[in-house]
Each structure stands twice: as C-alpha cells, then as structure tokens.
C-alpha cells in the first residue's frame, strides 16, 4: 500500500490557478524526484503536503487514512517533515533546543521544566544517526550550512518522520557535505522512510530517485521510473520547446571600440580575487558560476553595493565611485537578483516604479519640481516599449502584475536612464517562458542600441542563448572564458566546478 497518495490537487491564488489537479503516490522506502522550472507548481504542491497551504480541491491519504493537515505542526505529527531550502533553525538556540522546540519532554510530570538529560541523550543519538559530530549543546549559530541541514534531518527523525520532503537541499552545501547527505538518504531509505527530492540538478535526481515526476505550469507532464528517464527527456518535458524557439535572433555584432566597462584586478578578501574584465559596446558578456562563487557579489561590487579592497573599475575610461547613486550617474544600471526585496516598490503604482531611478531628469533644476506631462509621456512610452501588459500604469500597483510583467517594469525602470552599462543578475528568475522570451528580446534590443551588458545567470542555456562571450567564475576568480564558437554547456559546468587550486585560509 502506498505511504502517501494525493489525487487531483488544485490550488489558486487570487484567481490564478497554479495547480491543475496533480496526482502523486509514494511507497515506503521510495525516493520520488520532483523536477520542473521555477513556478511550475513544485513548491505549491509540496507546501500542501507539508500543511503550509490547504488545497482548493483534491484529496490525500497517508497510509490509507485520509490526510488533511491544517498547519505544518499537523503534518509533522502525522509524520511528514518538510526540509525547506532556507532552514528553519533558530541560530540563538542550541542544537538540542532546536530539535525539541515544539515538544520538550518534562523532567517532572505536570511541571513544565525541560528534561535536559533526556533531550541531550536523545539528541546525541540522533546526531550520531546523521553522522554529525557536534555536541547537543552547541549553538546553531556556530554550525556551517551543511551541518545545519543535518540538524534539520535529525529533527525530522526525532519526530518519527515517515515521509521527508527535501526542497533543493544541496544549494548551499559543499561537495563533501552533499556526499554525506546522499549517504544519509540511502540509510533512511533502508529504514523504509519515503522521501520526496526536489532539485534542479538533474543528475542528482537520476542518481537518487526511484521515480521521477515532471511538472510544468502546475500540471504533471511526465511520470516515469528513473531508469527510463534521461536529463534530455526531463529538460524537454520541463521546457516544452526547443532552444531555437527560446531565444530571439541577434543581428548586431559587438564593436571593437575601446571598452565601455572595464575592471582591473578587483579584489575583496574572501569574496572575489583579482577580477579583470572588459565589456564593449553592443556586447553581451555572460557570467556563469556556482551559487556562492562570487558572481552576485561581483555585480554588487561594481554597483557600489558591496565594498572592494583593491582594483579599479572604469566606465568609458573614467573611474567609478563607490556609492550606488554615483555609479548610476556614471551610466550603470543593475537589475538585482531578488525582485521583491530590491527591485520593486510593491504597493506603488507601475508608473512610480518605472520613474524611480530617472526621476531627477524630469525635474526643474534646483527646485526638484517634476514636469508631470513629460514624465508621464516617458513612462507610458517605456511601458509600451517593454510590451507591458497592464490596465492602468498610473493606478495599478506593481504587486498586481505577474512575475514576468513585474520584471519588465524593473527592466524598464533602468532603461529609462538609457544606461551605457547594464548588469543583470538572474534576469529571468521565477518568470514564465513567454515573458522570458520578451525579456531576452529587450536585452538584445538594448545591445543593438550600443549598451554594454553583463548577464549573470545560473541557467547555462540562457547564457549560451544570450551572450557573445561567457566568463566562468569559481571561488571568486575567473576560471575560464568561452567565445561564441566554443560554447559548450558541459565545459562551462566543468570550469565552474573546478577544485580550488590553493586552499582558502
């Protein structure tokens, strides 16, 4: 009998259906892989299993009994543990306290005193089970991300978990920690614990899982034994279209004129080391790299959001200042990785968002009084040119738009300044395929108009489709450079995963 069975799960947010009847089943001791692009419904369906969200329709059974958790606590009592991407541990508490936070055993019956001896012994046993050689009284703040993950798993085991959901568990782990995690997953499988493994790293999914489900746009588009799956097939199912369709053609050739953006041996200890690069007019340079390789930090250093110790950054031969405002005035624009936190003014109108970086150029000198007519004309022109789908840009808050349209607004607000240099950090994260294509088109148009563009992305296919050159970052340094003729996804990946030449201090 199946450990967990879900039938026809549906869920909508604000009238938008994000899950159209998803079915899944998992046996004890089975590892089920779940893959799909961002926004395909993976997290929503797992949040339903973990009790974070309630489904609008459909049913679930756990061990043959109807299962409808009202909150995460309900789910964990029923034996389902959800290990989130960002870990839910409290750094100001110890390991043992984190493990028993919502159910400390008492030392005396009816008196709410924590039985320290008991939780220490139990924690010790659990930590041994996950092979973590730390004392139960260690504060979590002093553990590494990998060690914290082990603590999360230990916590799941302490709650007698029958099913553990892993959401992108390897993103912040070292390769040694990843091997330990995989060994642990095999061990749990032997204990007949069911697991759901969500990851973008398809090789890991194939290696670990017995069965793979592929989601696209909130629906199940593929379900097969892992033995019958290949990365190619998964990608085809996930994306639903081929490479040629995904990227608009480029016509402009980068010019050989003096560089627009130039970095000369930029270093910041522990972050980036000796970075030199040039970007020319009409050139798109891609930066590939692992999470934590220093690619985002490099962009933030250029834009003045992070400090640098040594090195020079030049735009059209003039040295850049170190505050975002001055960098911007030199003609640099920066689309950040986290749209909600750093890209949009959530409750403000689309027009307010679009105008923000360029607003000073629509004001009378000295007074700061805005020329509303000119500003409105410019903003609506920009909304049209990025093909924004919105009803009323002056009134509609940006929050009310889809992710793709929000990203167009964020891109548009930088285009309002007609930047000479545009830095894009994960420009298509969390947006649907159609909107992606339009974002690519805007980037190409901008390059055609002569901008120098630096794109950072964790999707290698995206970099290959967009860039004229690709630089690969590894441990804060550039480890390889590829020209359009030599683009090869596997080579790029290999360069990004190089072992460090000299051990870091």
């Amino acid at each position, binding site marked *: 009998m199946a450990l967990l069975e879900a039938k026809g799960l549906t869920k909508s947010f604000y009238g938008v259906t994000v899950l159209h009847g998803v079915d899944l089943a998992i046996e004890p001791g089975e590892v089920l892989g779940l893959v799909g692009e961002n926004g395909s419904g993976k997290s929503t369906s797992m949040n339903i299993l973990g009790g974070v969200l309630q489904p609008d329709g459909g049913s679930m059974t756990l061990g043959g009994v109807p299962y409808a958790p009202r909150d*995460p606590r309900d789910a*964990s009592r029923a034996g389902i543990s959800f290990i989130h991407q960002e870990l*839910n541990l*409290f*750094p*100001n*508490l110890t390991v043992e*306290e984190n493990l028993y*936070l*919502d159910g*400390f055993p008492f030392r005396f019956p009816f008196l*709410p*005193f*924590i039985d*320290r001896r008991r939780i220490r012994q139990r924690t010790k046993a659990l930590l041994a089970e996950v092979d973590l050689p730390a004392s139960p009284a260690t504060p979590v703040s002093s553990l*590494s*991300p990998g060690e914290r993950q082990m603590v999360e798993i230990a916590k799941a085991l302490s709650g007698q978990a029958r099913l553990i959901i892993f959401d*992108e568990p*390897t*993103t*912040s*782990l*070292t*390769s*040694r920690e*990843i091997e330990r995690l995989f060994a642990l997953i095999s061990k749990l499988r032997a204990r007949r614990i069911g697991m759901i493994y969500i990851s*973008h*790293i*398809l*090789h890991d999914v194939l290696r670990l899982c017995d069965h793979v489900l592929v989601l696209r746009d909130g629906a199940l588009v593929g379900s097969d034994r892992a033995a019958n799956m290949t*990365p*190619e097939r*998964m990608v*085809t199912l996930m994306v639903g279209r*081929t*490479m040629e369709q995904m990227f608009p053609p480029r016509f402009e050739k980068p010019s050989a004129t003096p560089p627009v953006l130039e970095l000369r041996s930029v270093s910041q*200890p*522990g*972050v980036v080391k000796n970075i030199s690069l040039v970007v020319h007019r009409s050139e798109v340079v891609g930066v*590939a*790299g*692992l*999470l*934590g*390789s220093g690619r985002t930090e490099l962009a933030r250093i250029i834009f003045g959001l992070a400090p640098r110790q040594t090195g020079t950054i030049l735009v059209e031969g003039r040295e850049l200042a170190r505050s975002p405002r001055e960098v911007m005035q030199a003609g640099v624009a920066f689309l950040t990785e986290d749209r909600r936190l750093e890209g949009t003014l959530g409750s403000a109108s689309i027009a307010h968002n679009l105008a923000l970086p360029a607003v000073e150029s629509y004001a009378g000198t000295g007074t700061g009084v805005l020329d509303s007519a000119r500003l409105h004309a410019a903003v609506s022109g920009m909304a049209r040119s990025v093909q924004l789908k919105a009803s009323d840009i002056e009134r509609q808050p940006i929050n009310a738009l889809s992710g793709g349209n929000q990203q167009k607004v964020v891109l548009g607000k930088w285009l309002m300044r007609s930047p000479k240099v545009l830095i894009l950090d994960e420009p298509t994260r969390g947006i649907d395929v159609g909107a992606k294509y339009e974002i690519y088109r805007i980037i190409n148009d901008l390059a055609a108009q002569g901008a120098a563009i630096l794109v950072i992305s*964790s*999707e*290698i*296919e995206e970099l*290959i489709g967009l860039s004229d050159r690709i630089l690969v970052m*590894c*441990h804060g340094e550039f480890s390889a450079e590829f020209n359009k003729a030599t683009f090869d*996804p*596997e080579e790029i*990946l290999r360069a*990004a*995963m190089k*072992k460090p030449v000299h051990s*870091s*201090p």
Partner: protein
Amino acid sequence: MKKGVKAHGILVALRLLPYAVFVVVLVTFASLSSRFLQVQNFLNILVQAAPVAIAGIGMTFVLLTGGIDLSVGAVMYLSACILGVFFKSVAWPVGLLLMMACGSVWGALNAVFITRLRVVPFIVTLATLFIARGAALYLSNTKMIFLPKEVTGLNRLYWFGIPFAIWTLAVVLAVAWVILRETPFGRQIYAVGADPVAAEKAGLKVGRILFLVYCISGACAGMGGFVSITQVGAVSPSFALEREFAVIAAAVLGGTSLFGGRGGVGGTIFGAILIQTVNNGLVIINANPYIYPLVTAAIIFLAVLVDSLRERILKRLQARQIRVEEGGDARLASAPARLP
C-alpha cells in the same frame, strides 16, 4: 577573515561598554564624595534599584520577543491607585498579588491589540500609557494617596538581615531565570524573538507566547510598583512618571537587544543598578536637579546606540555567512547537464 575577527572584537567591546561605564561612574563619584563608597550607600542603591529591576525583568521578556512595553510606568501608577482607593485595608501579600493582577490585566489588554489586531507594540503601549495614567488620575482625583502602615512599613522589614525589596527582587529574578532557561516557554520566547515567522512555521503558538509575555511585563510592573510604594510611602500623581525609560534602559544596558532574541534577566539587574548608582551619585554630590533628566536621557541614548551598533555588526556577519565561502563546491542550480 581578519575583518571578521575585528568585528568580533568590536562586538565584545560594545558588550563590555556598559560595565566600563559603571566603573567610570563608581570612580568618579567615589572621588567626588566620601559618602558614596560606604556599604550602607550600596545597600541603599540596591534597594532603590529594586522597583526598576523588577519591572525590567518583565520588560526583558517583552524585548526578547522583539517587542516593547512603554506602559509599565503608567501601570505601576494605575495599579497603585487601585490598591490605594479600593483595597486600603487588605493584608500586604493580598495587596501585592492584587497589583500584579492589575498589571497583568493591563498587559493582556496590550497583548490583544498587538497579537490579535496586529498593531505595532510601541504605538499600542504608548496609547495605553496615556489611558492608564488618565484612568489612575481619575481614580485618585489627582490627589496624593496614602497607603496603610502595613504596606509602607514593609520598607523596614528585614528577613535574615536582608530588606524586603531585595527578597522580592531575588525571588522574581530566580523565577524569571528558571522560566527563561529551563522551561519550553522560555526557550520558545528566544525562538520567537529570533524569527517570528519561522517560529510560527515551526508550530509554536506565537500569539500565545506574545500574549503571556505582555502579561508578565504587566505583572512585573505591578510588583515593581508595589515595592516602590513601600519606599516612597504615598502615591503622588507623578508616581512612576516616565519610569518606563529607566526600565527599558536597564534591560538594554544589561545586554538584552531591542531587536529580539538576545539577552537575559541577569544583565537587567546590572542595568538597573547602574542607573540607580548614577542617580544616587548625583544626589550625593548635590548635583543640579535640572541635569537629572539629561543624564538619564544620555544613559538611554547610550544603551540604544550600543545595541543598534551590535545589531548592525551581527547582521553584517550573518550576511557574510550566508555566502558559501569555503564551500565553493556547491553546484550550479538549475543547470541541465546536457542540452538537447
């Protein structure tokens, strides 16, 4: 990595700064007046610090959750008025419990607005501060209230040579310490302060924890008010006026963060003693009474400044940890191994 070490050094220095200030204060007053260094004077300081320390222990619970309670001074006054107007003839233990009950009811009122209606704590407690003071002025008819000898005489009550105020403080401190360290509720307070959203996700009853915390603060304020009455003898309309400042400062000087999740009740006692020492010293050296509020304001400013700087540095250190420095082997997210 050198930078990290330096940041840790600054953190330690900021943590120790209030203690350094305490030493400077002691040395300064000792050199200005010979009366300051007498044992009896230190005992006086301790006794006089007790009301603020007791209320500060309650405040520590609130601050640990990341909240604040500005109504404690007003609660001291209101509960004292209720005792003095309606229950003049009760035995003192009953009076003490009564004032604590009044305080916790007021705390519950604060908590309803904070947890159920989601209004920010400082606005709620600022408003209830005025409401409580208004209600107390109404009850007392803006007149002095005199309490029976039974209560005011407690000031001269000694058990085993230790005055009543110190006993009370010791009991409250012990209970609070055990609650924070050794009960699930105590540990959950720290979790809520670190991250209320994560605490909710972890299945903690955040609303209930916050509710209790404000009740505790109110009860401690009531108790602090009671101890204060035994010392001043009568309740004037300016009783405990703006005492909330000293109470908050005591907790923060003791190392409890205004940003939640960090600190403990032990430090609060130190903070209260530091504040009382300064006040006591100013009296002994016959300082101009007009500078008292300035000195108090300066101490609070210092406390808030030190805490804000610590929080800033800790945040920066955390941000560095999120990046995988040594773990560069983490892999490309969402990289299909081979493309069609």
